[in-house]
C-alpha cells in the first residue's frame, strides 16, 4: 500500500504543480483577405449589405449582437460545434464555410466579429429588450473589448 500511496501522491503532485498545461496556442495563420473583403465579396450575399440577414436565403441577421458574442458564433461555425458529441445547429453554414474557405474566403473570427460590429451593429429595438434604458445609446462606441491589434493575426 505504501508504494501505491507514493504513486498517488506523485501523480497528484505532478498534476497540481505542472498540470493544466497551457499548451501551444496555435501556429500563426495569415489570411489572404481582410475581414472586410471577405464580408463584401461573400457573406454579404446571404447575410445582407448591413448584416441584417436575408429571409429568402434563411440566413440570420449578424448585426444584432456584439463582437464578443459574434466571435463565439463564428468560432462555433468554423469548428463544427464546441462540445464533444453535441453537434451543432449550423450544419448548413458549416458546409458553406468549408466551401468558402476552399475558395479563399477564410478569416480570423475575432477580426470578422469586430468588423461586423463596427460596421453594422444595431442595438435591438426596445420591444425586443422589454427594457427602455436610455443609457444603451453609447454602447456601440464603448463595448468593443480588445483593440484591433490582433485584427489580422493569430489563432
Amino acid at each position: 500500500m505504501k508504494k501505491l500511496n507514493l504513486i498517488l501522491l506523485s501523480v497528484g503532485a505532478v498534476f497540481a504543480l505542472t498540470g493544466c498545461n497551457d499548451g501551444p496556442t496555435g501556429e500563426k495563420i495569415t489570411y489572404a483577405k481582410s475581414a472586410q473583403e471577405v464580408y463584401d465579396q461573400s457573406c454579404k450575399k446571404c447575410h445582407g449589405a448591413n448584416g441584417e440577414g436575408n429571409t429568402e436565403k434563411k440566413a440570420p441577421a449578424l448585426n444584432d449582437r456584439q463582437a464578443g458574442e459574434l466571435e463565439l458564433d463564428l468560432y462555433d461555425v468554423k469548428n463544427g460545434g464546441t462540445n464533444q458529441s453535441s453537434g451543432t445547429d449550423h450544419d448548413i453554414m458549416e458546409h458553406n464555410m468549408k466551401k468558402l474557405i476552399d475558395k479563399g474566403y477564410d478569416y480570423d473570427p475575432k477580426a470578422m466579429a469586430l468588423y461586423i460590429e463596427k460596421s453594422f451593429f444595431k442595438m435591438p429595438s426596445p420591444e425586443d429588450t422589454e427594457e427602455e434604458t436610455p443609457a444603451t445609446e453609447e454602447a456601440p462606441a464603448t463595448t468593443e473589448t480588445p483593440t484591433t491589434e490582433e485584427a489580422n493575426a493569430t489563432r
Partner: protein
Amino acid sequence: MNKKQMKEGIELIDAHFKGEGISRRDAMKLFGTSGAAALLATGATTTPVQASEAKGKIVIVGGGLAGMSTAARFTNSLDNPDITVIEPADMATSYQPGQTLVGAGIWEGSAVDYKTADFVPSGVTLIKEKAVEFDPDKNTVTTASGKKIGYDYLVVAAGLKLDFGKIEGLGITETITTRGDDKAVRKVVGKNGISSIYFANGAIDTWANMQQFVDKAKSGKKVKGIFTHPNTPIKCGGAPKKIMYLTDARLREAGARDNAELMFYPNGSKMFGVSEYHNAIQRQFEARDMKWNYRHNLVAVDTEKKVATFNKHWKQKGAWDEDLEEYGIEMKNEKVEVPFDFLHITPPMKAAEEIGSSPIGSSKGWVPVNKETLQHVKYKNVFALGDIAAVPMGKTGGSARKQYKVVVDNVIAMMEGKSELPSKYAGYTVCPLITSIGTVMLAEFNWTKKPTPSFPLDPTQERWIWWLLKVYALKPMTQYGMLSGRA
C-alpha cells in the same frame, strides 16, 4: 494492481520531475507526505505572494465549484476583501465529477456530498438565496426575497440547469440543478430503467437500475442499453460515454456482456472535437463491441412501454446556390423509435432562466464573455466563469480550475486601476475518460483542438495511473486545493 504498471508509474513520474529539474523526493518534500488530501491542501503552488490593497465590493452569484473557489482566491489575494456569495443550495460544493463513479457503484452516494457551509472562506458573506434580477446599469442584483445588493464587481458562476422538460413523455416541466431540489425529476428519472447521473440522486438511482440491467442479462435475457447525448452544450462532455464504458465493465464482470447490446446515440456526428481523441474512442468502442449511431437527438420517452424516440437528422445535397457558387445542403429528419431495458439520459442543458434572459444573458442563454479575459461583452465590471459562461468547449471542473485564477487576476487589475486585463484563458479542458474499472484516458486539450498533455505520454492510451488520479487524487485536489483557492 500489478507490478509492471506500478513500475511504469514510478518511472514516468521520475522522468517528469527530472525534466522539471527537481527530484521526485524534493517534490514530495515540497508537498509533505502525509496523505493525498494533506498533500494537495498544502500544494500552494500559485498562491499570490503579495496581497493587493485594492478595494471594491465583489458579489459572486453561485457558490458551486467555480464561485466558491473564486471567493477563496479573492480572500487570499486581497488585504481587505469585501466578498458576498449568493447561493441557495446546501450542498453546492459537492464533488459532481464523482457522480459518474456513484452511478456505476464504485463510490457510495455520500462520497460526493460536501456542505456549502464548510467551504465558505472566512470573512465571506453567504446569502442563502437565489439571485433573480440583474440590473447591470445600476450595478445591483436582487434576491428571491427582494433584497437588493449593490456591487462594484459582479462574478457570475451560477452553473447550469438540467432541462429534462424538453424531452416529451417524462411529464417534467421544471428545470433542476445537479445539487438542488430534484423532486420534479426524480419521480420519473430513476424508475423503469430510466437513469441519469447528471443529478446527485439520479446517480444513486442509476446504480440501482444498472444492477437490475446486469442481472437481467445474467439471467440469460437479451437486453438493450441506450445512452444519449443532447443537442446543447453539456457539462463534462465525456460523462455520457463514461457511464456507458462502466456499464460495459459491469456486464463483463458478471460474465453477461454477450447478452447485452449497448448503443450510444449522440446528437452530433463525432465522439470528440479533437480528432486524435475521436479516433481513440472509436477504437475503444469497437474493441468492446459498444455501438454508436450519430445524429440522433432524444426527443421523447414512453416510460411505460420503455421506448425512446429520437429525431434522426442528416444532410443531403441541395440545389446549386449561386451565392455560394456551390451546391448547398438540405437538412432531412425523421423520428426513430428504439426500445430499451436501460436508458441513460444526458438531458439538454441551459443557463438558469433568471440569468439567461436577463440583461447579462444572451439570445443563446449563456452569459457572453470575452473567451480569454472572461469579461462580459457588454458590462466591463461583470465577469463569468464555469458552466454558465459562453466559452467554447469549457463546462468542466478542469476548465473552471483555469478560469477562476484568470477572473481573480483580471478583477484585481481593474480594482487597481490598470487598463489592461493581464490574464487570459486559453481554453484548457481536461476530460478523464473512464474506459473501464481500472483504466482512464486522460484527454487534455484546448482551443487549438490538439491534445495538450501535461505528461510526456501518448495521451490517447488508456492507463491505470490515470484511473488512480481520477478515483483517488482528483477529489482531494478539488475539494481541498481548488475550493481553498490555491490549486
